[in-house]
């Protein structure tokens, strides 16, 4: 064996719905019209929440906000494929995924209002709160997927992170743990081409992010992240395998159409031309064309959706503002430990006194 090939790998890329709305019949997921319309409405709801949040922030009524604009298909398509008891382990840009999992939009706004109330885990929900440290949460998902396996339960942990996150050692450690323990985990990487200002080429010399799975001996696949049906399809398959103890990395190739967060000005590092190019590839538009051309969505229904979304978000904003009025600073002492130690009790008295 002087010089021989000992291992071979390849990365596949999947697209179910082409850029101009043509479906590939082999890859089309079997979803009812109602489900397709649900996907559509979820994407619209997320988009509108983001838009309203940005304008609230601009008026000084909200803190830093990280919009998912342009990434709705990646998030909604993947989260929609999950079972009720599957775990979601998000990063900080997952409004669309969270809405899909049933998170009330006012909670997302609470989070952006700097309130821990927005990070509460509703009773019985299998979820982690948003994770600010880039790349840190996939390890939690690896641990969950491992723990569910130890306990012989079928639940899968789905975690979200970005292209930038893949440079953090933690993400690689998460893949590797998942591989070793047959963790019931699906790693959804949203490759939106930017980590704040940093382009993918400055982030890694790897051609694809899906290939990062190879290092851990787990499978990786790429999917057009602006194709909600393709994402759904690929993640559905990944979930099925993960439920059997085969963890998987799914790279969703998409684009962050908006600013990194409301504190960011992308004009410092990318040009309008590129942004326009991706406006044309907007995931909601693509899906809408498909729905319309296949007679699933008509004008009336579109307006209905828009109105419902509008009023939901408006209500959520009201509700968020009301909650924000009640913030009690003393809460910061209450949830540090199960039982407040005497020393901290003293500090609370100091605070209140």
């Amino acid at each position, binding site marked *: 064996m002087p010089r021989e090939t000992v291992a071979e790998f390849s990365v596949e890329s999947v697209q179910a719905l082409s850029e101009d709305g043509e479906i590939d019949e082999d890859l089309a997921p079997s979803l009812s019209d109602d489900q397709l319309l649900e996907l559509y409405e979820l994407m619209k709801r997320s988009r509108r929440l983001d838009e309203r949040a940005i304008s609230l922030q601009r008026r000084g009524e909200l803190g830093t906000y990280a919009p998912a604009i342009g990434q709705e298909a990646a998030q909604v398509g993947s989260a929609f494929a999950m079972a009720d008891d599957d775990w979601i382990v998000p990063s900080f840009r997952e409004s669309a995924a969270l809405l899909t999992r049933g998170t009330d939009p006012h909670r997302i706004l609470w989070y952006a209002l700097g309130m*821990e109330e927005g990070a509460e885990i509703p009773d019985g929900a299998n979820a*982690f709160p948003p994770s600010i440290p880039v790349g*840190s949460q996939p390890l939690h998902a690896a641990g969950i997927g*491992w723990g569910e396996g*130890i*306990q012989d339960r079928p639940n899968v942990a789905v975690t979200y992170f970005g292209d930038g996150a893949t440079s953090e050692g933690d993400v690689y450690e998460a893949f590797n743990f998942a591989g070793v323990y047959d963790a019931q985990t699906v790693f959804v990487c949203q490759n939106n081409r930017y980590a704040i200002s940093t382009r993918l080429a400055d982030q890694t010399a790897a051609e694809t992010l899906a290939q990062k799975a190879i290092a851990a001996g787990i499978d990786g696949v790429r999917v057009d992240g602006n194709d909600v049906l393709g994402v759904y399809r690929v993640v559905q398959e990944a979930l099925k395998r993960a439920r059997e103890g085969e963890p998987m990395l799914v790279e969703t190739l998409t684009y962050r159409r908006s600013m990194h967060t409301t504190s960011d000005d992308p004009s410092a590092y990318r040009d309008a031309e590129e942004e326009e190019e991706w406006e044309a590839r907007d995931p909601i538009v693509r899906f809408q064309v498909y729905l319309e051309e296949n007679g699933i969505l008509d004008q009336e229904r579109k307006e209905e959706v828009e109105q419902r979304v509008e009023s939901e978000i408006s209500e959520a904003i009201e509700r968020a503002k009301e909650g924000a009025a009640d913030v009690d600073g003393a809460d910061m002492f209450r949830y540090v*430990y199960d039982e407040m130690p005497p020393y901290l009790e003293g500090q609370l008295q100091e605070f209140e006194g």
Partner: protein
Amino acid sequence: MADKYRVVGAVRETLRAELEHDEEVVLYGEDVGRAGGVFRATEGLLDDFPDRVFDTPVAEAGIVGAGAGLAATGLRPVAEIQFQSFIYQGFHQLAQHVARMRSRTRGTLTLPMTIRTPYGGGIHALELHSESYEAGFSHVPGLTVVVPSTPAETSGLLRSAIRHPDPVVFLEPTRLYRSVREEVPEDHEIPLGESRIAEPGEDVTVVAWGSMLQRTLDVADDIDASVEVVDPRTIHPLDTETITDSVKKTGRCVVVHEAPRTAGMAGEITARINEDAFLYLEAPVERVTGYDVPVPFFAREDDYVPDEERIAEGIRKTVEF
């Protein structure tokens, strides 16, 4: 297990008992399985609990971070980090997530996990195998930091740590692993957050923990003064009162630890005494600690770690002030 054990045996038998007691307990870490741990603190446990004891890859961020996930699923993960300094590889997971998951989520997601690790000097090990960073961990709100000092204390505190509803960093003094055997009561819990008077006395209070405690007790036996020795046991959140009550009685205090002096726990304890017992103080609180240098390689390690002489000198200085 009213049997006699050394510290390492106390760890092992307590882990075994907890694995038996609660099927949600899982043990994992580098070499804890087939090899039974580099100090043999988990010997035999993989054989007895093959589905709940795991060797891990060499990845401490992974160990800490995955632990958060395990705990969230309802398990009670007990991780071993092979040596304390290697927690640093997972310090971000500890400080950014484990310590604050409860506060971040207003108590709706909690992480009952224990991270055990040998700490401190004394066995002439390699570089970075002898550090003491209890103060750095204590400066991270949300962590509970525990240091036992005898086999029975180890067992009682470890059991409480494992059953604790919040994350505990459990620092096992390496130097003590193989020192004396003593009787270890069965199914005994020692509440976290409570100091103990290891030896009552009148003239001066000495606060010491881990492997410094026995040294201090030895010195206390020999020295020409009545020394009250306080073992905080839980370094954070610290039971201030036991210490300050003692100082109110003695008027004098020495704090002993292996960690470097600057920003160490001796400074914290000095400040708390200063705050709560200022008018009782008849001498400055004395700090007998490691020097503000990296723990040297082992040829110079004994020059670094406080020895009986330095402790005695500190006590004398304080008593004679």
